[in-house]
């Protein structure tokens, strides 16, 4: 398991770049419009803000329903930031980029 060398929870996009890659998990349930939209939005955000600093895993709960309990998934779609800790969750189709960035601790919270 890779760990970040020092500074935890970087607040700015600039510093995040120096950080370790984000491990992201997107939970979906089948190829629903919302799921497809969420995945597209996520790719766009990552490419714009986290170039090369991320890895995305998509989990389809229709195929592996038992994985829902582990990350306490209720809403679909849910994006989970597994690393760095602490775990963050963003639910919805990720159409509001600002909220996604806040959720990923890339933008500061109000």
């Amino acid at each position, binding site marked *: 398991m890779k760990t970040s060398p020092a500074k935890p929870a970087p607040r700015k996009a600039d510093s995040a770049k120096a950080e370790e890659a984000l491990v992201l998990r997107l939970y979906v349930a089948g190829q629903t419009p919302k799921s497809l939209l969420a995945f597209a939005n996520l790719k766009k955000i990552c490419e714009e803000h986290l170039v090369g600093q991320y890895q995305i895993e998509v989990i389809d709960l229709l195929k592996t329903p038992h994985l829902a309990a582990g990350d306490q998934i209720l*809403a679909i779609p849910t994006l989970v930031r597994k690393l760095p800790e602490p775990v963050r969750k963003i639910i919805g189709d990720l159409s509001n980029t600002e909220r996604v960035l806040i959720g990923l601790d890339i933008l500061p919270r109000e």
Partner: protein
Amino acid sequence: MAKTRSEQKPKPESKPRQQLPKAPTGVQGLDEITGGGLPKGRPTLICGGAGCGKTLLAMEFLVRGATQFNEPGVFMSFEESNKDLTQNVASLGFDLNDLVARNKIVLDFVYVERSEIEESGEYDLEGLFIRLGAAIDSIGAKRVVLDTVESLFSGFTNQLILRAELRRLFRWLKDKGVTAIITGESGDKTLTREGLEEYVSDCVIVLDHRVIGQASTRRLRVVKYRGSMHGTNEYPFLIDESGFSILPVTSLSLQHTVSNERVATGIPRLDTMLGGTGYFRGSTVLASGTAGTGKSSVAAHFAEAACKRGERVLYFAFEEAPAQIMRNMRSIGIDLQKWQNKGLLQFHANRPSFMGLEMHLTAMHKEISNFQPQVVIVDPLNSFTGDETEIKAMLMRLVDFLKSNQITALFTSLTSGDAALEKTDVGISSLVDTWLLLRDIELGGERNRGLYVLKARGMAHSNQIREFLLTDRGVELRDAYIGPAGVLTGSARLAQEAQERAEKTVRQQEMERRQLELERKRKALEAQISAMRAEFDAQQDETLKLIGQEQTREALLDRGREEMSLSRKSNEKGEAK
């Protein structure tokens, strides 16, 4: 699991039409109220305030389903972790770990932490559906509990989505054909805080935890049950080590079977007063009286007599501890300890204020059902605090329950000094069959006890007041002396008795005196008679002597005459021939 919780779920016997299919809960009493259980394959809402037992009722429904009706279940908790839940219900005797290991129950703890979640755009709760669906399919669950689904409202900001999803969830549960319980916290004006009753409308049960006069009572009410008859009253319930017990108490039909058998009261003289053989079996006896008139002693006698017959006696004590009762009764020669050791006598002591009326009633029901006594003693009845009509209603239910089980009951009731003797505080006189009135009689500077039978339904009974004595051999009843001044008891009676004894002695002496006099007279008469006889004898002797002398003289004269003639006419011997 609890053994008494037997298969007494009442099947709705005489059903004219096709009834809604029902899933028996196995919860004592609930199946009776709902006419067989919760609506099968539909969601039921259980709501109530904090700490009223929603989670426990839901859990018991699930556990009993899994253990008694072979219907595995899923418990989805939104509030308590699996570990906490397992520990909490272990106190009711449910071993969740075992049930989970045997694939009878699935616990799923759903945890929503608002601070961890950011919302961005549209979403739905498909994840919840998938989790629940997976859990149901993993064990073939027939029952589902969602406890408390309202927690979701604090986890998600978009209420519109949430409400739409909940509506979809309940429909989905119905489609799945599982019998579900959804719990909800009571709201201010609505049944639940988030208005869940809008979505779950097949069956709504409200639990309540009310405090009246510092005593708390738990109650349950079926507010709504679509397509089924149900009891509409508020029913008290208990939560204890064997789970829930709800008391369906409205079965007030006067259809008890009656017995002609008599049971001895333990006080022979009282048996005599009650037509010779005691109380009727299954009847209700009230011993009322002012303080210190011996009510408990009458009760203890009856308890002892029942134990001697080999019957079981359940003694509800509300003012004295069992040890104190036993000590006190030993002083009048009644050994209750012996019977307790033999298991024939069981005490159940509680302060009346320990819980509310309904809880007392429920607890008594439970104790009676467990112990199956032939005799129940409640000492005293009127220590219950509360509204008079409520107490009366409770006692009516108790009397009803006892009668329908053919249990002979003896209640004691304290009458306050200035109240009318015939009035009991709780006004249950119309409920009792035999009423013994114990009273104190103040006379001549002392206080004594009296007893009489105020009423005894169906038996010829004495109308006499008897003096009631507490001796070291138990209760003794004596005839009271009734004179012009009223009933005499105690010293007055003793004085009266002494006086009577004295008078009797005087009368006896007089009689003896007369007898002596008679004897004397007889003797005098006899003496007189003998004197007269002596005189007569003397006279007789004299007379006889005189007669003898006369005869002798006569004879002598005769001889002399003869001799004379001989001498004169000796020559004319031949001539004479």
